[in-house]
């Protein structure tokens, strides 16, 4: 329970919004997207560490995905489309 609340606070406090259609948390500024499953399966400090990860020269336009399993191409494209439109 405490963890659910602290994850909510962490995500919202770090500028992440929830996409109900894709069940992902995303931040348009950092171009990072976390699946709900990833958030469920990782502790708040691990999630925070991923949020802080530098982009390592990634072009700003590319979304970085934090999924439990790397998303296949068709899934990545569908999520990107949804986030860029939304």
């Amino acid at each position, binding site marked *: 329970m405490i963890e659910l609340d602290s994850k909510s606070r962490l995500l919202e406090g770090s500028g992440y919004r929830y996409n109900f259609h894709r069940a992902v948390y995303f931040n348009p500024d950092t171009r990072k997207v976390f*699946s709900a499953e990833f958030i469920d399966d990782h502790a708040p400090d691990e999630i925070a560490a991923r949020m802080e990860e530098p982009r390592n020269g990634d072009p700003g336009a590319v979304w970085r995905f934090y999924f439990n399993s790397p998303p296949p191409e068709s899934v990545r494209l569908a999520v990107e489309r949804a986030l860029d439109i939304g």
Partner: protein
Amino acid sequence: MDERTIEDRLRQEYFELLPEIRKVADHLESQIKFRLLGTTRTLDRYERVLVKARVKDCESAVESLRRRQEGQEFDLSRATEYRLLDLKDLAGVRVLAFPPARITEVDHVLREIFPEWVFDPVRGHDGEILASKYWGFCEASDRVKCEYQVASMLVGLFWEIEHSAIYKPAPELRGIALSQGVKAATHRVLQSLAAFEQEFERIKEQATHQPE
């Protein structure tokens, strides 16, 4: 080459299976109601046992498969691997009971009838068991799996509203069940319902032993 979408292929599979799914649901419901007669005929006035069968509708079945994918999207490179027959709850029966002593009794009676079925409980956020759920095959079909669930009536009635709001929402709210805020709110409700049941059992125990 099959140019239909994954969803359309699954819809076709659904309607081919539907008569069999209905048969399974009817069979399981009848069997459970019959076996629970010993319990349902001896209920006290404040006690409840409710048996309800349901057949998963087509879009819920497709959505259910889709919801298992991160990003809520089918992987096109695995298009032919998705099958509705993988779902364990195309047909299901839910048994709701109150108070907790009746839940335990019902669970025990049904466990004896379906000893081979796989225990796959519904757990809350803290790992607590919210419902005893079992899946397996009944005599009506050897390919359509079915499940039955034994749960607190308070939790079950809450789930009826919660599930219709959370699992069958408008498309734009599809992932509502996975949001951390909704999970936290749901957890608080379930904790309160459990506290009510515990207190009810405690008071009932006191009243039973009180001289008139």
